[in-house]
């Protein structure tokens, strides 16, 4: 008989060995490139189902606090349709309208919203539209569509499954003058939200930014310790006002600069400038 204390020791050794073996196997799989990241390779069924379920439960949990307003008062279906036309139909399609090539080559494939809109509660639809879905092609729209616009989009989504192809086409014509509203305020400042904005405008894809997890990128200069810098783009003195001016209109400040016009609204630019100037505190 193995003594009791030896049993415990052997169990511990066995557990550690399993963990180490698991780590080694994972490393081999990772570094050898055996796991395919191609969008053309199908998931295993079990993987797919787990991801699907995970999305459902995560959205349900995170959207639980969202209070749905009276959509008849707050939302405008035609405005919602304008937003859908501008931002969604390219990937998701619509009744009688095929999605663009943009929406066809993806894994996971963007859902056909006619079904999702029937099954998902408004708060869930709002959450996914506002916050996006990571590791998929679904962006977050929080910083590009105002809150009223987002609820209008949800209202339209609820209406869309009731339309025939012809009705959709007619609706498109009749709501041609509606516009999808952009946000006009930035809310209360916080470092986290400022970081979120920087990510949502893809700033961290060209610039290394303090406090943010992102690629090591050298397309634009690093923005670390930005407060110490004397010039913006080598042209404007580095003051908060000039920084906002630069973010909002780089081409106006320095023609032919490779920093594109990202259509940053000024309230967002002010938060981002404040973050950059104070991040090294």
């Amino acid at each position, binding site marked *: 008989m193995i003594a009791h204390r030896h049993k415990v020791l052997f169990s511990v050794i066995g557990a550690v060995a399993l963990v180490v073996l698991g780590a080694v196997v994972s490393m081999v799989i990772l570094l050898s490139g055996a796991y395919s990241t191609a969008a053309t390779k199908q998931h295993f069924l079990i993987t797919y189902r787990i991801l699907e379920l995970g999305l459902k439960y995560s959205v349900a949990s995170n959207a639980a606090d969202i209070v749905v307003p009276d959509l008849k008062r707050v939302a405008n279906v035609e405005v919602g349709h304008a937003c859908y036309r501008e931002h969604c139909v390219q990937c998701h399609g619509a009744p009688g309208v095929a999605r663009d090539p943009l929406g066809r080559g993806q894994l996971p494939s963007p859902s056909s919203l006619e079904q999702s809109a029937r099954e998902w509660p408004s708060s869930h639809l709002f959450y996914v539209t506002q916050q996006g879905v990571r590791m998929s092609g679904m962006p977050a729209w929080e910083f590009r569509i105002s809150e009223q616009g987002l609820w209008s989009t949800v209202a339209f989504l609820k209406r869309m499954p009731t339309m025939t192809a012809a009705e959709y086409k007619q609706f498109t014509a009749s709501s041609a003058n509606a516009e999808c509203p952009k946000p006009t305020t930035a809310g209360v400042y916080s470092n986290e939200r400022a970081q979120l904005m920087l990510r949502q405008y893809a700033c961290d894809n060209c610039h290394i930014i303090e406090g943010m997890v992102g690629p090591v990128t050298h397309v634009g200069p690093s923005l670390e310790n930005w407060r*110490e810098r*004397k*010039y913006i783009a*080598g*042209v*404007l*003195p*580095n*003051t908060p006002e000039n920084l906002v001016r630069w973010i909002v209109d780089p081409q106006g400040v320095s023609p032919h600069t490779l920093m594109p016009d990202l259509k940053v609204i000024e309230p967002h630019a002010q938060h981002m400038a404040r973050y950059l100037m104070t991040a090294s505190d």
Partner: protein
Amino acid sequence: MPSQASSSVIHPAPNSGAELIDQLGTVLYVGGAVIFVVVMILAIWGVYGRGRTINPQRWIIGGGLVFPAVTLTVLLVYSLAVGNALTAIGTSNALQLFLECFGGGNAAANAREPSNGLLRIHVIGKQWWWEVRYEQPGNGEPVVLANEIRMPTNQAVELVLSSTDVIHSFWAPSLAGKVDMIPGRTTRLRLQTSEEGTFRALCAEYCGGQHALMMLFVVTQEPTAFNAWLAQQREPAVAPTDSFLTLGHDAFFKGECHTCHTIRGTPANGTDGPDLTHVGSRKSLAAGVLNNHIGTMAGWIAGPQEVKPGNKMPETKAFTGVELRALSAWLGSLQ
């Protein structure tokens, strides 16, 4: 900083006060080494020598009293003579005879009959730069500049040293010893050399955070070249000659630089910072820290606190990129 400037105590400029000091030092070093070797030999002999009897009293009196008395007296006279020679540079003095006996009095001897009288230069130490004022004959307005001293070769120059804030010390290692610059007092240092060249001088008394970056260049030139330089320094600033330089000139005032700096010939008459009338002609910027070209000028103006943290030139956000370059070019044109 300019790399060709000499600042070595053991390679002093010819016929300078530093040469006298170096010679004194050599005498002490060599003499001391000889005495050390002799004493060591005696000690070894005392331990290992084959038991010869000696007369202790003779050794004690001879080696312990007579020898030191003689040696130290000679040394005392010699070092007093050197000290006197250093302060006597440029004036006639009876002790020069003494110095010529030792062969170390060339500096004093050459200047026994100064031709133009003593050239006096007031050097006022400030945190962390040097104000320099050349006395003009007949109570004329002094020629004011900063952070550089030029002097003619083979002519004695007296620096009249003082300070407006804390104790600094003027030290040009290849030319002379150190003399403190004390607020509320005046001290004097005489310089002379026969060689043309550029010598680095530095502050030798801790005076605050940027003490280590408080330097200047002493440039010695042939008298004609020196006189031409001094005449140039006396002139007011040249007017800008093209639109780019004019932009720089205007930027100087837009950026409020005139509240601290003087540029004669313009409305700028601030006195908190160095006189910039001929800043383009200097060998260095920021008191011996940077070379002087448009790049360093721009970098200094736009980022003084990175070059000399804590120095009194404030950060400015007043200039666009073009204005900064124009301002740097204009200041560089003030030769």
